[in-house]
């Protein structure tokens, strides 16, 4: 049944821009905070207050536009979008309808087959966020926190170019990473700094016309998006296959129950009575300004991957893993620079670091130790001051509290023992304790040597030099 139908998806992605202050006033954009602490007459819609545009927000929007190959509108304007709701203090939202800041862009994604596909960007427009309405069940009233009111947003509207949940996730991941690399937003779905609405329709395979679409809201994770797409595509296909039609409506996703329900239909659509905001002059974006922003654009992931292979001689796999987040890539580059050992830096980050991050539910941005310390640790292993197992132990300590590995090794007596006599004693002890292994070795089982060295290392609390131990062991056994 579903083979005869094709799913068509376009996305509306809201992203909170990482400016210090709000888009139309000087209030802080910090997340959280005492309710209504970050407010002023402008962002609470007091009589007589006027908006003034934050240039930094415009720069972020232009930067995202350039990264997504958009045309930048040289004289963009702001419009008022009217609707009454208590979290919208002026009862109009300042947005862009007639002349959005960016238009006609595209983002390339890798498809499952390994090919590339361009997802068109219809437009990117700027707007202000609303406040937060909290319903107090105890007092039976609603209260409003305007801290978020006026936080700058961009809405990235794609063309209906995606055909599967995989493509949607690939597009979103690409977009998110690009914006994070730009420093334009942290793009956290859970905290709402990135919000995704999915416009989805299905049509008979091969049909040129689009089917009737629905808009899905309240999607708070990539997993929820994937589930919602599967469910909604199935729901629409089933309706069409049984001769019913799809109603154009906005639906709300209930992730716990894996189903969606209709919020409002097209018939309820409000007339927003858009018109140009007379309080804000058109924003003139000069070529010089655009070039200035273009010159500041960071190196994006694809370019980084290529450079890591070229300059650091890393395998493709390493380059891909390290660039998954900008924080990890930045950290890697710092360690590589200080240590001069990129592959070893990569090993530590991809191995122990990522393992402990995952274990602790942390993100790359939350790494506590500094690049200098990891570089020192690498040097300590390299020059044989400490053994691999000791290094792991030191690293675990460093991961927790960012200790200086040099001093820690010194203070805790973790240096590898190069004293031949002590090593010989420990080896003799191991041989005496494990006659079976000695016999195995003599019968040709080379593996038994490894076990014996291990026992010796253990006895010396890892401070032995394993290479030296192995050589000495062979010497003793051949005596």
């Amino acid at each position: 049944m579903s083979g005869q139908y094709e799913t068509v998806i376009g996305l509306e992605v809201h992203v909170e821009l990482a400016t210090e202050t709000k888009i139309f006033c000087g209030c802080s954009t910090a997340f959280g905070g005492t309710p209504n602490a970050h407010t002023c007459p402008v962002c609470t819609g007091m009589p007589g207050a006027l908006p003034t545009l934050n240039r930094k927000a415009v720069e972020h929007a232009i930067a995202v536009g350039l990264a997504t190959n958009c045309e930048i509108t040289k004289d963009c304007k702001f419009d008022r979008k009217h609707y009454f709701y208590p979290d919208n203090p002026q009862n109009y939202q300042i947005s862009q309808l007639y002349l959005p800041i960016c238009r006609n862009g595209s983002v390339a994604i890798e498809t499952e087959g390994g090919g590339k596909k361009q997802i068109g960007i219809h437009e990117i427009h700027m707007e202000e966020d609303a406040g937060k309405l909290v319903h107090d069940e105890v007092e039976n009233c609603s209260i409003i926190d305007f801290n978020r009111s006026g936080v700058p947003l961009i809405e990235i509207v794609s063309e209906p170019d995606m055909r599967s949940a995989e493509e949607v996730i690939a597009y979103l991941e690409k977009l998110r990473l690009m914006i994070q690399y730009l420093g334009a937003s942290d793009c956290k779905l859970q905290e709402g700094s990135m919000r995704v609405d999915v416009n989805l329709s299905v049509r008979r395979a091969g049909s040129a016309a689009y089917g009737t679409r629905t808009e899905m809201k309240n999607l708070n994770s990539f997993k929820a998006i994937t589930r919602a797409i599967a469910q909604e595509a199935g729901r629409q296909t089933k309706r069409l296959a049984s001769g019913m039609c799809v109603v154009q409506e906005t639906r709300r996703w209930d992730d716990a129950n894996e189903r969606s329900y209709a919020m409002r239909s097209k018939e309820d659509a409000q007339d927003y009575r858009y018109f140009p905001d007379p309080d804000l002059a058109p924003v003139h974006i000069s070529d010089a300004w655009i070039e200035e922003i273009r010159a500041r654009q960071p190196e994006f992931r694809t370019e980084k991957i290529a450079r890591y292979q070229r300059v650091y001689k890393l395998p493709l796999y390493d380059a891909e893993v390290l660039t998954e987040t900008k924080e990890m890539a930045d950290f890697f580059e710092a360690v590589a620079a200080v240590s001069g050992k990129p592959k070893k830096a990569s090993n530590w980050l991809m191995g122990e670091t990522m393992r402990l991050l995952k274990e602790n539910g942390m993100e790359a941005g939350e790494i506590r130790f500094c690049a200098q310390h990891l570089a020192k640790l690498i040097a300590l292993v390299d020059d044989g001051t400490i053994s691999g197992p000791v290094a792991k132990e030191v690293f675990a300590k460093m991961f927790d509290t960012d200790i200086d590995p040099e001093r820690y090794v010194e203070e805790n007596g973790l240096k590898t023992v190069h004293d031949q006599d002590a090593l010989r004693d420990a080896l003799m002890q191991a041989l005496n304790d494990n006659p079976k292994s000695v016999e195995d070795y003599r019968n040709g089982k080379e593996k038994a040597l490894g076990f014996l060295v291990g026992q010796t290392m253990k006895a010396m609390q890892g401070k032995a030099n394993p290479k030296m131990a192995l050589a000495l062991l062979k010497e003793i056994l051949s005596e």
Partner: protein
Amino acid sequence: MGLMQYGALALGKKIRKKEASVLEAVTEALDAIQEKENVIHSFVTLSDTYALKRAKEVQKQIDDGTLVSPLAGVPVAVKDNLCTRGIRTTCGSKMLEHFVPAYTAEAVSRLENAGAIVIGKTNMDEFAMGSTTETSYFGATRNPWNQEHVPGGSSGGSCAAVAAQECPCALGSDTGGSIRQPAAFCGVTGIKPTYGTVSRYGLVAYGSSLDQIGPIARDVSDCAAVLEAIAAWDQKDATSIARRDMDVTAALVDDVRGMKIGIPKAYFGGGLNREVKEAVLAAAETLKEKGAITEEFEFDLAEYALPAYYVIACAEASSNLARFDGVRYGYRASGYEGLHAMYKKSRSEGFGPEVKRRIMLGAFVLSAGYYDAYYLKALRVKTLIKREFDQAFERYDAILAPAAPTTAPRVGSSLSDPMQMYLGDLYTVSANLAGLPAISVPCGRDQNGLPIGLQLIGDCFQEKKIIRTAYAYEQSRKEWDA
């Protein structure tokens, strides 16, 4: 002679020369208000406690030489749509009957920094919508020249207060004539500056692209002094303009020789009261006698200004007034079921009929399917009108016209016929649409003794030209108020 019989600059001078104290000036203003308010009703709220406290502070600054402004110690009345921190700001509406702002409008702050003392908030048409000050929730203001007549509007309270000598000067706002028309009706002088000259921050918006704050005073000199104090670029208002030519008191020169003054024929046609027409043309004659060159010219688009103005002003008003919803401040109806009902009831009960009419008109012209036909077309008319003015100002230094087609109508005669009331704005709205500066100065009285106003419109940023022309006219004016 009581202190309130002096103009703003004359009173400021007396205070600086220690012939009067700031406290005396404020006390006499409050006494005058006390005596006349029963009849005139210029004020909605008096800030007497605040004014007395400020009087002491300002006196001290004058005494220790830190305040040398010509307006230091001068009492000023402020239209009640300008936010004043700690002093309620009603906009003449039930909606904001108990609203006390947390900040002060930039223009008021600047005036206070110049040492002027805010003595109270003046009555106005509700949200500045009206031409008579009768749409105020707090009752009508009366014309000091004849209490059976209106003072005009919407800055009727400010103009009446100055005319009744309750204070020497005041601030008003002008969206379609709201300073110039009541100034004409009350026999005082008022200026609407070039759009962007005075910061609108803290002015409760009516038509944002048209609103300008301006001075109202007894003569041109006082108006120029107040304008000089309030005009400044303000980073809080994105439409404000940085100007270096606002030393407008320098234009108080009694010389119009060689000045070219255009007289638009369309402004002197049918609908213009005969006595008003004669007085205004007599003023033109006076200027001619003083060496100005006057010339009639065709102003073709005059008739389109009024409809374009009402479409744009109402569209912006419908949007600007959306914030009055009873949620965060202002009037909230009691007894409602749910959010929608709260909005509906609060706004239905909080706004008066004229405000509701304009909100509905504005919402209509912005709605899907009508936007192009009304709002966009009105914007195009606005552009054309500006162009026609540009052409006129290639030939003229100022345009001379009546401020209003009639003198002040009787109380109660206007509201029954809103179309007639709207037509009263015929000569003033063009300056707002084109963003031009304009001044209204008294030029005579009709047979009932009601004042007539002469309007001079200047090109953008040419306040000095119209101030100079008006000042020169004032010096040769016959005893108009005898």
